[in-house]
């Protein structure tokens, strides 16, 4: 049974624009699924609906087991509390869940370590670079040991070099624990590199135009292989057909 089933999902904005129309999608446990589509196609709206922040007008979102599992969320902006140090930002979900200070600091320190920010626990967001802030945001998403990571173009605002590095790190973090990830992006290369499966969306109103499984080598630099280039080409071609239709 799929971890998440989305069936016939439709969503219309208050201004009358139809953002999503008949979205069908299943998220399997342990997979890294990218939602890829042109900007404005409703992929972020779809993710917000999955998060429970946007209410769909039609269709349904069903989680295995009936209720939403623990989710970790990363938005396009790091959305950190500027007045709080890294450790308090990372520990926020645990604080809201009512954990005591010792327990949440221990978990936060571990999460900070996992994203490579050990030594910056007491820094405030302003003292960090854009890439480091995004790592804080990822650490906050990881701290509650979530069953699913929901990420909305998390690296879109970062420079290319930082982005490649964070893609590597995210890939390692997700595969180390077999975390299920639903990842929104508008980058073909990023989606192929990160994902085990890619769902391509149509321009607005957004629907799923098709899904592709990504075949990746067990080891080595995937980006340097001909397989990678070929699959990027396939995804681009599908995207091109979707845009032309």
């Amino acid at each position, binding site marked *: 049974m799929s971890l998440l089933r989305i069936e016939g999902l439709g969503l219309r904005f208050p201004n009358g624009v139809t953002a999503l129309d008949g979205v069908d999608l299943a998220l399997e446990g342990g997979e890294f699924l990218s939602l890829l589509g042109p900007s404005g196609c409703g992929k972020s709206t779809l993710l917000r609906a999955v*998060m*429970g*922040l946007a209410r769909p007008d039609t269709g349904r979102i069903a989680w295995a087991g009936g209720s939403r599992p623990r*989710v970790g*969320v990363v*938005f396009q*902006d790091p*959305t950190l*509390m*500027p*007045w*709080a140090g890294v450790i308090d930002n990372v520990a*926020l*979900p645990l*604080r*809201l*869940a009512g954990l005591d200070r010792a327990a949440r600091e221990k978990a936060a320190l571990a999460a900070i370590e996992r994203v490579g920010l050990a030594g910056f626990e007491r820094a*405030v*967001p*302003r003292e960090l670079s854009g890439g480091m802030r995004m790592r804080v945001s990822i650490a906050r998403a990881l701290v509650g040991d979530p069953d699913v990571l929901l990420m909305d173009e998390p690296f879109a605002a970062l420079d290319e070099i930082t982005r490649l590095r964070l893609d590597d790190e995210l890939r390692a973090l997700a595969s180390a624990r077999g975390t299920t990830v639903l990842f929104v992006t508008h980058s073909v290369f990023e989606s192929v590199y990160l994902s085990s499966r890619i769902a391509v969306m149509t321009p607005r109103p957004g629907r799923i135009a098709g899904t592709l499984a990504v075949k990746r080598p067990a080891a080595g630099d995937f980006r340097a292989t001909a397989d990678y280039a070929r699959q990027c080409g396939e995804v681009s071609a599908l995207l091109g057909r979707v845009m032309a239709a």
Partner: protein
Amino acid sequence: MRGALAARGAPLIVGLLVLAAWEALVRLNDMPPYILPAPSRIAATLWSDRAILLVSLAVTLKTTFAALVTAALSSLVLAILFRQSRWIERSLYPYAVILQVTPIVAIAPLILIYVEDPFAVMLVCATIVAFFPILSNTMLGLRSVDPGLEDMFRLQGAGRLQVLWLLHLPSALPHFLAGLRIAGGLALIGAVVAEFVSSTTAGGATGLAWRIIEAGQRLNVPRMFAALALIAASGIAIFALLTALSHIVLRRWHESERTG
């Protein structure tokens, strides 16, 4: 570095020039102190009358700070209430505006009638003057919260109190402090106005404004100027103090206190 020094020195030089011109004007025209006292005479009066003036200064400052604290607490509570419910805001906010736009000198005589304790009269007057900028600034701050963080809190199932304490109040802190900075000067004005208005009833008020009136009746013009100088210095000191407070609290994270 030289620019910064010049920027600091410029107003000081202007002040010294004005004082020197004033001193020269009085001396050259041989003006009597009850018409216009020279700055040197005012300074001498400040020293010779220090016992009386300092006691009065303490009275005025006590009113000012009590009013500032009362205004800060009451407007904070009110702003939080407004943030919790649009209905409360719609029902009460117009009255806060009315209170703000009605001149305090017009309200003060009424307060004198209904409030007996002279200190309470001063406190009420100064609080009315001081509280609005804190209220409106804090309201603005409580509404200028990062929508992404609002989503984040909602997603994690944060309760109303958690959202208020961990998100809304810290977000509003810079605005609150900016309001407090304006209110500091206004509280002093409110205290002085209240002393002026209540001086006619001899309600035991012995603040600096009261000293000015008393000295005026005795044609002790140097003391009037000395008391005025103390009021102005207090205003500057309060502003500097609240600016420093804002800097200490915000310097690590807020853009308004970014240096260099």
